[in-house]
């Protein structure tokens, strides 16, 4: 049998964690804590964006207001993630969906309480806020 080529296992390891700025979209994350889903609407041209962003991608205005985007979603597509990346190895396999909300915005999130077999394109789901044990907010789709 051919022997494995010789490699040097680097002694230096690097554990990368980033400080991701969220101050300009903090209203979204604060809203989640109250179970609300808000996003940005451009005061100049009226464009509603999701994910929320302080600067309008359509007209480049920096004047945005926060609007309620509702929670009723229609399932556009989904997948069941069985091989999960390193930082999710502790998680059970999960199902991720993209749904369209009443205003036309689309949201990607895990589904909760539904098996892959139960999911059908076109079905009606609802966004719900969740809080992780360490306190950070996130959101999921559940059956409407």
């Amino acid at each position, binding site marked *: 049998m051919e022997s494995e080529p010789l490699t040097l296992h680097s002694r230096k390891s690097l554990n990368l964690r980033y400080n991701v700025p969220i101050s300009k979209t903090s209203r979204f994350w604060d809203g989640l804590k109250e179970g609300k889903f808000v996003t940005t609407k451009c005061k100049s041209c009226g464009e509603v964006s999701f994910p929320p962003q302080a600067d309008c991608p359509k007209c480049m205005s920096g004047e945005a207001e926060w609007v309620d985007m509702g929670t009723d979603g229609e399932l556009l*597509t989904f997948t069941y*993630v*069985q*091989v*999960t*990346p390193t930082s*999710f190895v502790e998680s059970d396999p999960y199902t991720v969906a993209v749904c369209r909300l009443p205003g036309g915005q689309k949201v*990607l999130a895990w589904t909760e309480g539904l098996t*892959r077999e139960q999911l059908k394109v076109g079905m009606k789901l609802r966004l719900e806020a969740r809080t992780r044990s360490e306190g950070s907010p996130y*959101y999921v789709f559940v059956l409407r």
Partner: protein
Amino acid sequence: MTGVAIVGIGHSKFGRRNDVSIAELAFESIHGAVEDAGIDKKQIQNVTVGSVGGWYEENVPATVVNEYAGLERVGSMRVEAACASGSAAVKNAYLSIASGEADIAMAVGLEKMTEVDTLTAVELMGRGGSYLWEFENFGMTFASYYAMFAVAHMNRFGTTEEDLARVAVKAHHYGSMNPLAQFQKEITIEKALSSQVVSWPLKLYDASPISDGSAAVILASEDTARKLTDTPIWIRSIGASSDSADMSRRDSYVGLGAAVDASRKAYSAAKIGPEMVDVANVHDCFTIAELMAYEDLGFCAKGEGAKLLRDGQTMIGGKIPVNLDGGLKAKGHPVGASGVSMMVEISKQLRGEAGKRQAPIKNGIGLVHNVGGTGHYCYVTVLSRKR
């Protein structure tokens, strides 16, 4: 403006290449391309390295590549366009000649993804979307993104898991004839269908592998190209386009808007239509991506990709043979190298040097469709025997 032609091609063996360092791996294709072009390496004025990086130890790869190969005092940079980095490197080399800056330039596609463990590579690719909204809370992987396209395509057009498996069977069929491919074995539909689910409905055999490899092309201006070779392969046009980072902002999940736009630009600039293309390499990072590519490129109508494949139209003897080198699926997908590897394959096809997997060449036109990320970037390059 001067014409720009590919005058030299080089390609390493793709696969798990822990027998070589990143610079040694790049040298394999650089050396091949220099020999093929019949030039002295000192004639190369510009070197662009396409590589994503992060999975190998060098952070500034173009410099170690140039140093190892003795490429001195060249204009150089590394470019990144995710899995389309190779095509982006070719575009930069092309522009350096078209602008008059250089007479001979080289594009090197390079990746070494197996120096980290598999799930770390999966993570680094999964982070290739909009991090905060797709990865931080939801752990998307590359297979997951393409699985979402597959679910939408299956739902809308009746494409089946068996159709997807057929793409893999075709890839492995041609891969078995390519001595540089990572996988050189035929597979069956049954074997593909029974492989492990990675991200439903995509299975292990729907996915291109994690790979190491390099490929290089040497480009020259019109006058120099004609002096160097009797078979210059002209770059007739490069169409480039983009789409949102975040999947939730896409208009559709049954195709890639960037690919439709890039191909229109490329066809228009080359003054051709899809029916003129004799042979193509398309970006089959997952099986569903190949079917969507047929449709996005206009090889068939939207929704008819699976039928085109089932009818054998994308094999040798069909209307438009696709991925005769095994594609990313069987040849391997060292992401930064893939675009350049596709240029190497289409150059071989147009030169008539592809051996038993040679496509019939009628119009002398080949096409490279190279997607970065989940359609974040797309480059469509039209290559031709005629200027």
